[in-house]
């Protein structure tokens, strides 16, 4: 009993075709044709035109079980709706119909829903040329030019064939100036039975994906391509001083062999190849602007020199380690290096402070040894008349202490020595001290350092 009622209900729904009507959609508004005929106009063979329709159900809920077009020149795009489906009362099914004439002459199709003709479509195919790639294969959609550097171009060859029995004139162009048709000014005559080879160029002026279309009469062939940065010119490293020693600051400039066609960033790294492979880490070797051994720079189109922030050079520190400082600049595909040799040197004394205390003499000395080989220090004390005080020069072995200190330091060859000399007598009679420090490069000697009383 139940299945019988269902069958009758289905039959009733299918027996109400008049509740469907087909309406053209123009600018979002439904437009009805009085004679239920819709024209798609005239299109060249191979061209297409799309119109949107609403299949509206003005009656009760209904099942749409059949929907088709009677001619292959017209088709639903992107595909026919899935069937069966229920079209609720008062709603509409959205449809897109394409007219694609395959031959010259008029074409007609009936729009049929649930076995009932609701409308007639007509259009006209116009005699036209056919278009293929230069080697005869169909034009892909889109015709992709791939990635092309700004300032350069890529070309594709297309073949226009006139298989009609008469001469034709075709209008040819593109939608975007990045894509250009070469080979003659439009319109171009094509003799009956003749062919014409044209070149389409993609010459991007901007980076990124770009889309356009090749237009031949009313035939539309999508075009695509991607503009990319051209390569940077080779960078060269320039130092403001060819010879630098430890504990100095220099400036590095990145110059370009020619004005850059590209815009982007690069980086410069610095590293040390110490003369003594066992030398401790030297954090003093760095670019002060970053506090690290890497600095980034920017290159703009037209630049012949890289920019570090607002400057065209970057400051670096040579640190306190003998060896080779190697600068490496990376820009685009290029990588270039420059070596700055740092010679082994005698110990450099940066600052000293000599003070008398009630118990003796206090000496504070900041220095650096870029060889890490300092072996001894000699202290010689003088009185106010410049006479050496007994017991004379006092030499102290510092190699073990410095070795132990460097093992726990990542500041390179710098060290601060705090030495206290107990005095039996009046410290005020000690006027000054000279300090000698011996390393593998020689002997460093301070000036005579006067003792002060705080």
């Amino acid at each position: 009993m139940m299945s019988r009622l269902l069958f009758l209900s289905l039959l009733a729904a299918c027996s109400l075709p008049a509740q469907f009507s087909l309406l053209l959609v123009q600018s979002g508004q439904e437009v009805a044709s009085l004679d239920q005929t819709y024209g798609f106009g005239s299109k060249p063979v191979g061209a297409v035109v799309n119109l949107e329709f609403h299949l509206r159900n003005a009656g009760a809920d209904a099942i749409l079980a059949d929907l088709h077009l009677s001619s292959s020149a017209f088709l639903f795009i992107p595909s026919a709706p899935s069937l069966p489906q229920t079209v609720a009362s008062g709603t509409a099914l959205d449809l897109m119909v394409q007219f694609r004439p395959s031959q010259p002459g008029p074409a007609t199709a009936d729009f049929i829903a649930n076995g009932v003709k609701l409308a007639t479509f007509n259009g006209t195919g116009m005699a036209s040329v056919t278009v293929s790639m230069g080697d005869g294969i169909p034009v892909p959609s889109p015709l992709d030019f791939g990635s092309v550097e700004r300032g350069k171009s890529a070309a594709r060859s297309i073949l226009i064939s006139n298989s009609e029995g008469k001469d034709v004139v075709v209008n040819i162009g593109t939608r975007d100036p990045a894509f250009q048709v070469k080979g003659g000014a439009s319109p171009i005559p094509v003799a009956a039975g003749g062919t014409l080879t044209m070149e389409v160029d993609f010459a991007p002026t901007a980076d990124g994906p770009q889309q356009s279309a090749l237009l031949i009469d009313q035939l539309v062939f999508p075009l695509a391509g991607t503009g990319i940065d051209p390569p940077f010119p080779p960078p060269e490293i320039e130092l403001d001083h060819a010879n630098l020693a430890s504990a100095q600051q220099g400036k590095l400039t990145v110059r370009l062999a020619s004005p850059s066609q590209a815009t982007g960033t690069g980086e410069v790294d610095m590293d040390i190849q110490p003369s003594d492979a066992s030398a401790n880490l030297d954090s003093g070797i760095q670019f002060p602007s970053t506090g690290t051994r890497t600095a980034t720079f920017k290159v703009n189109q037209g630049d012949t020199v890289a920019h570090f922030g607002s400057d065209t050079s970057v400051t670096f520190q040579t640190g306190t380690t003998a060896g080779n400082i190697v600068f490496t600049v990376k820009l685009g595909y290029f990588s270039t290096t420059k070596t700055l040799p740092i010679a082994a040197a005698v110990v450099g004394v940066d600052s000293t402070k000599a003070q008398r205390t009630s118990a003796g003499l206090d000496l504070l000395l900041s220095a650096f040894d870029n060889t890490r080989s300092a072996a001894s220090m000699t202290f010689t004390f003088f009185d106010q008349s410049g006479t050496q005080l007994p017991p004379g020069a006092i030499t102290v072995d510092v190699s073990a202490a410095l070795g132990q200190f460097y093992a726990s330091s990542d500041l390179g060859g710098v060290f601060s020595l705090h030495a206290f000399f107990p005095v039996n007598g009046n410290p005020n009679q000690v006027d000054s001290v000279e300090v000698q420090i011996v390393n593998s490069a020689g002997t460093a000697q301070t000036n005579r350092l006067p003792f002060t009383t705080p």
Partner: protein
Amino acid sequence: MNRVVFFFSVTVAVAASNLSAPLVGLARDAKGTLHPMHGVAGSFVVRGAIAGDALDWAFDTSGGLMKTANELRALDARGNVIARRSAPSSQVVLNSRYAFFPETGELWRTVPNDRAITIQNAAVGGRVMALGPADQRGIVLAACRAGQLWLLTFDITNGALKHESAPGGEIGEQACRAVNGAALLVLQDRLLLATAHEIVIQTSTGHERRVPIPQSPGAQIHRAGEHSVEIEVSGSPSLLLRLVEDGERLYELPAAETRP
């Protein structure tokens, strides 16, 4: 005849405990945090942080002072905070050991013990721009009187004015036009003034020389170490002016490393 004899003589040796990382001085970053600056001149490493919100500061090898919004902090010779004291939020002028509050005329010392004296406004007779060197006898205040810079030495025990002199020169004329108080530095052997594009240095003999710096209307200079002056220029990396016997050398200071 009174001779000196060294007890340690040849038996003494330098131990690892006598060695440490040299501290060039301190540097303040753009966010107002003070950092220790290790190394030697030309090979600086700025690492770690001492304290934030430093509105003003001064440091030499004997230690330093820093002022936050409502505190005065004393630093030891390694840059460690060793004393803190509530302080007025009003304007302050610092050297490495003393803080002067122009509003009240109070001159504070926090180390080795708290001490304060009052310097009479009438004795100053103008706007205090900087504190100069101090010893057991006196302290120098640099003050603007009628558009001219004066160096006034006050007794640090009772605040009495002991001596006054006008340095003259370009510094004498320009110092009072400075837009901020941290543009002038009074050291033992020279005066420094930051102008919009250079540091003007006047030696104790009255000779003046100039060190160009990046253009900046409000450059600040701070005593950063025994031989170091930090130059803070807006929009540019901080600079360090190394004071040597025969002149000055300018260096670029490293950005503070993020690691402790």
